[in-house]
């Protein structure tokens, strides 16, 4: 071979700054680019479709408020995955913790008689406690017995979802007719409105900032991060690793439970089976996309909210199946994994040439 080009893959010695920080953005752009191929295959102009999805959504008042409302449970469950992830644990069960929070929030709202000023915090508190208890189980099992938290959190999700289904068909069934739904919450239990959104937006914002401060300013946050990077060294340094494991899963569960209570007291106003479109699962790519910081988790949840809301308008306007949104979400994960490769290796194009023998040598 005389000429020609070949692709070379070489290990990076150093991750360039732009790559380290630009990964989330590049990931999202890459996912959208591949999504565009799917749109083209469906005979839809991707520019117009993405225009509707993003510009349309973010320029209409309805779109913005819908996005914010969607972002609340996504951000809270995203943090519920993010916090254990910093300690090196995978909380795959934010969905179940969200359901437990919704059940407890509904129960408090229906059974406690108090003015709104007291009742609303009580509803949220109940949701947080229930979600936290749902996280306590995998936390204790992991800390004391070394049981894999991925399996326990995931399995408890099914228990949580089915528990809600049973309750609204049995003990908590309310309302008229024979529908599997709880009674409606009294007005005092509902979240106050802030313009076109509810007060849950504030709660999510406060929670995001609180988790950020926890990680970046406190001894607990330091212990979480150290444990997540090297649990053995943390143990040797006197960090109570078992406590850290229990803490992150309980706190994560509480955040997800809070999301469930907010969803009921802010939007749904009653408990229905399968009320969540999988917020707790979407939370996983959100936490991965934002794993470098809690604020990024917040941003990622906004992005995913736009995807969901914009996806619906895209579906209406262009007849594109909403499943495409899920495809883009999946692509985000795939691109994130790919980005790890690009962080480690450099791809180059090189002109191939024959290795020139050195004239002075003996030759072979």
């Amino acid at each position, binding site marked *: 071979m005389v000429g020609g080009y070949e692709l*070379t*893959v*070489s*290990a990076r*010695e*150093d991750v360039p700054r732009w790559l380290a920080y630009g990964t989330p953005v590049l990931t999202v752009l890459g996912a959208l680019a591949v999504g565009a191929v799917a749109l083209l295959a469906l005979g839809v102009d991707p520019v117009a479709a993405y225009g509707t999805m993003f510009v349309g959504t973010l320029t209409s008042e309805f779109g913005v408020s819908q996005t914010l409302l969607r972002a609340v449970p996504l951000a809270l469950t995203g943090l519920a995955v993010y916090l254990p992830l910093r300690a090196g644990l995978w909380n795959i069960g934010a969905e179940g913790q969200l359901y437990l929070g919704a059940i407890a929030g509904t129960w408090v709202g229906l059974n406690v008689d108090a003015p709104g000023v007291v009742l609303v915090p009580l509803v949220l508190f109940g949701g947080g406690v229930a979600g936290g208890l749902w996280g306590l189980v995998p936390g204790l099992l992991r800390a004391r017995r070394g049981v894999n938290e991925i399996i326990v959190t995931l399995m408890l999700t099914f228990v949580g979802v089915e528990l809600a289904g049973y309750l609204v068909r049995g003990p908590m069934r309310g309302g008229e007719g024979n529908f599997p739904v709880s009674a409606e919450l009294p007005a005092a239990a509902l979240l106050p409105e802030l313009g076109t959104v509810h007060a849950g937006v504030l709660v999510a914002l406060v929670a995001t900032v609180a988790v950020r401060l926890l990680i*970046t*300013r*406190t*001894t*607990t*946050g*330091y212990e979480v*991060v*150290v444990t997540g*990077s*090297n649990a*053995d*060294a*943390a*143990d*040797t*340094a*006197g*960090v*109570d690793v078992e406590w850290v494991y229990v803490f992150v899963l309980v706190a994560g569960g509480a955040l997800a439970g809070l999301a469930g209570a907010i969803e009921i007291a802010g939007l749904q106003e009653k408990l229905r089976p399968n009320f969540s479109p999988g917020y707790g699962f979407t939370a996983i790519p959100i936490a991965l996309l934002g794993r470098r910081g809690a604020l990024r988790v917040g941003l990622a949840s906004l992005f995913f909210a736009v995807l969901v809301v914009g996806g619906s308008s895209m579906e209406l306007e262009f007849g594109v199946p909403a499943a495409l949104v899920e495809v883009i979400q999946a692509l985000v994960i795939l691109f994130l994994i790919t980005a790890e490769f690009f962080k480690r290796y450099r791809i180059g194009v*090189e002109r191939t040439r024959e*290795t*020139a*023998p*050195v004239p*002075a*040598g*003996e*030759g*072979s």
Partner: protein
Amino acid sequence: MPAKLPPGESDAYLRLAGIRKTFPGVVANDDVDLTVRRGEVHALLGENGAGKSTLMKVLYGLYEPDAGTITLDGERLDLDSPQDAIDSGIGMVHQHFMLIPRLTVAENVVLGDRSHAAREFTWPADLTDSLRGLPGAGVGARLASPARARLPDLGRAADRAASLPGVGTVLGAIERGVVGTTNALTLDLSAPSERIREFAAEYGVDVAPDAPVWDLDVGGRQRVEILKTLYRDVELLVLDEPTAVLAPAEAERLFETLRDLADSGITVIFITHKLDEVGAIADRVTVLRDGQRVDTVPVDSVSRDDLARMMVGRDVLFDVDRPPAAVGDPVLAADGLETTDQRGVGVLSGVDLSVRSGEVLGIAGVSGNGQTHLAACLVGVRDPDAGTVTVGGRDRTGAGPRAFLEAGVSYVPEDRVAEATVPDLSVMHNLMLKSYRADSDRGRIDYGAAAARAERLVEEFDIRGVRDVRETPAGDLSGGNLQKLVLARELSRDPDVLVAHQPTRGVDVGAVEFLRSTILDQRASGTGVVLLSEDLDEVFAMSDRIAVISEGRFVAETTPEEADPETVGLWMGGERTPGDAAADRPGATARPDGGGE
């Protein structure tokens, strides 16, 4: 700068010329020349961070040099990847082994090598013929005919079909095809295993080919790495600090193997920072310092001191100054410590010791005789099955590492990467690991103050390679500098007790001197030190008292003045002790009851 070629360099087998490699902010190799002759053992000597590993990674195709050329056996090499290097006959044994523990030795050896791994797959020729003949003959057509293949008749139809002429041939051929495919997809390890046995006989690289790698000790794993290169017909073998993980006896054995390899014509490059090893194994040595080549010399022509000076750039004191101890009250005591490992086998069987403030108790022993458990018990990381640990007069047994830490116990563990540091986090995060609680204000950490403190410690302990204490991950530091970081963290607390396990293992000469004298300074300010080491020079240079550990118990106690290293070395090997070595010392802490049991 052109190479100053000593006479005889024209017969160079490998020549690296003008190699330059920079990383952001660091020149790792600055115009380095290296010439190696065929069949020699060539040592590449230098302190950690001198650029030895970088140079070898360039040679192995892992790094692309910014400038310079590589010539092997007269041919210019253009290495884009390790595969290119392997194809050129270059093999490398890394410091961290690249093995898959679940697989056997033979499986690891053939891994990635496609040429020998799979059996030849041949598509049976008669199958093709039969298939070609089939559709026309109509057997297939009849079987496939929906009219005939009615459901209840299927079984009989198949029987009848098998008896038809031609079908038997087809089935037989298919069977052979399946077997052939299965063989092509599975490994036939008989031939590789045979070769591995041959290597074992020839070079003393003996490991059982079918042993699982997780079952091997470190030395065995290293031999598998060497086997991997031999299996790929290595002509130039590079070993990156191979003895860093080995016990002295294993290192001895490795040297013999390397000698055999060199005698059979394989060229060996041996990266090290240990002067003794250069003398023990190498024919010639190239010394690197700060990324530059200092010189290349035949080993017999230089003294150990010369090499040390070339390597460090100044005179090195091998004997640190140890003023007499100003001994105070006992600060740490252990009584009757017993532990077992995961399988329930006893590790420590009744260890007693006592350390007073201002003295160094050296615990000499071949590694693997219970030192790891002993160190862990003394700092509260492991709870003994029986016995007590007393810190500053208070029984702390079972109180956990935090209580020990707060009682003034500092710990330099054996494995600094796995136990003492968090490699992904910054130097600052690592330096505050033992003090973040004390320095926090009601649960809040002042990272500004932590960074300032980290910068001060980096300065004070001469930790090199730190660009920004908040940004540079500890994992980027070289072994010696990482150990300085650990020591800086542990000593800046001004502890009452320091338990240091192999504090200078894998550390270069300049840093060894620094680490030892720092520990002795700490002793002078009243800290009681327990030093666990298998390096007898270190034990004798540092200790006020020496206890010898073998098979989980102390077999003797002595002092550097009373005993000589040879005797202690024998005790370490489990030799029966005279029994009175410890008995005549008041306050003796070791049980002089012999090492037999």
